């Protein structure tokens, strides 16, 4: 390849990268602004998470050891439910007001725009769940090390929930009763995240160390970051056709 051709290929790759970045930035900035303007809705989701986590000690037992065993699982299941509660709105509002058509017709790559929307979803719904977890874990008499591992697991795992959830949200676009279908579609996919996330805390308590579980979560995250935006973008195009 001649030097000129190489430069032009490099320039084209550079331009494509710029467009992708601009797309991610547009979607992220806009969705964060929208989320901030309707922050009451986010508060409702977070409160739901807090209440679900709080119900279990009230309904079961005040016994320390039992609660400490149950805690990680309960916090993880509540995180899944909280994520599921907010997912239907990820694309549905844009679909209903026609913005999704403009997004799909934008010169920015649709995958980049979808990635930006997913990032905004995680920042507004996943990150607060991660930050609240150590506090809520206190109700379950979890020790410091367990709480750290729980928060680390949620930090790696909740982005996977947003990424996989986006595929389900895009696939159920425009369906009546899409929310229920979304849960059926996505909850089975969440199972590995749940197993490794809650398993990391169990392993720490058993003295085995959380590295293996957290590494597997990390691998899952890497896979989801690369694959999910493409799958979700393809589903959006199908929904518009």
């Amino acid at each position, binding site marked *: 390849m001649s030097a000129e051709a190489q430069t032009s290929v490099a320039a084209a790759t550079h331009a494509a990268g710029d467009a992708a970045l601009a797309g991610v930035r547009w979607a992220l900035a806009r969705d964060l602004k929208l989320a901030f303007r309707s922050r009451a809705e986010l508060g409702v989701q977070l409160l739901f998470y807090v209440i679900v986590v709080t119900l279990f000690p009230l309904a079961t037992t005040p016994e320390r050891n039992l609660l400490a065993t149950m805690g990680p699982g309960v916090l993880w299941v509540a995180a899944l439910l909280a994520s599921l509660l907010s997912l239907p709105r990820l694309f549905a509002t844009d679909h209903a007001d026609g913005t999704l*058509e*403009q997004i799909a017709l934008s*010169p*920015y790559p649709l995958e980049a725009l979808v990635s930006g929307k997913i990032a905004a979803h995680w920042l507004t719904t996943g990150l607060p769940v991660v930050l609240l977890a150590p506090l809520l874990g206190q109700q379950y008499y979890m020790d410091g090390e367990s709480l750290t591992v729980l928060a680390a697991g949620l930090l790696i795992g909740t982005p996977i929930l947003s990424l996989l959830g986006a595929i389900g949200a895009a696939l159920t676009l425009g369906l009546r009763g899409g929310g229920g279908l979304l849960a059926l579609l996505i909850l089975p996919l969440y199972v590995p995240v749940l197993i490794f996330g809650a398993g990391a805390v169990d392993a720490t308590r058993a003295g085995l160390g959380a590295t293996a579980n957290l590494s597997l979560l990390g691998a899952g995250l890497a896979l989801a970051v690369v694959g999910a935006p493409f799958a979700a973008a393809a589903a959006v195009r199908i929904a518009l056709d």
Partner: protein
Amino acid sequence: MLEAQNLAARRGYAELFSGMGFRVKSGDALVVTGPNGTGKTTLLRMLAGLSAPAEGEIRWNGHPVRPFSAELRNVVAYAGHLPSLKDELTTEENLAALVELSGASASAAEIDRALDSVALSHRRALPARVLSAGQRRRIGLARLILSRRPLWILDEPVTALDAAGAALLARMVHDHLDRGGIAVAATHQSLGLEPARVQSLVLGETVPA
């Protein structure tokens, strides 16, 4: 130049149209009319690259274009039935976001001027929630001006606009054609264009081949 050859559309098992073809050159407009349910919106969505024709081919400047292809995404400005506005954002923010999404860059002054030209500058800081249907349409008109695309696809653009708004739209389309642009509009109201520049396509009757 926008061309269509042998286009066919189906909704479920029902055939909306088939064997449709036309050629619109730079500076011309195609006005699509026909009774409800004959496929006007379907045709416009195909031309915008939002849905695939059941049969046939669409070409832009001689090259076949597929739905969601990069060639189309860089030339089309599509204004459908839905206003694409966010209730939580102000008039100004909505317009700026849509223009940026279309890949165009517009300075604050240009956005001001565009809002001025659609008579919305006194509503710039109001959330879109409180705007009337006609005012929402006008934001869409301002977007058309600022996105600077050669191919405008307008689905019932006069809906909800008052007389002044309809005149403004007609003037915009006229200027757009003068600049060498192409407009495809599904409308039953006249856009006031010179007959020489307008091709008309009537759906639901014998379709011109």
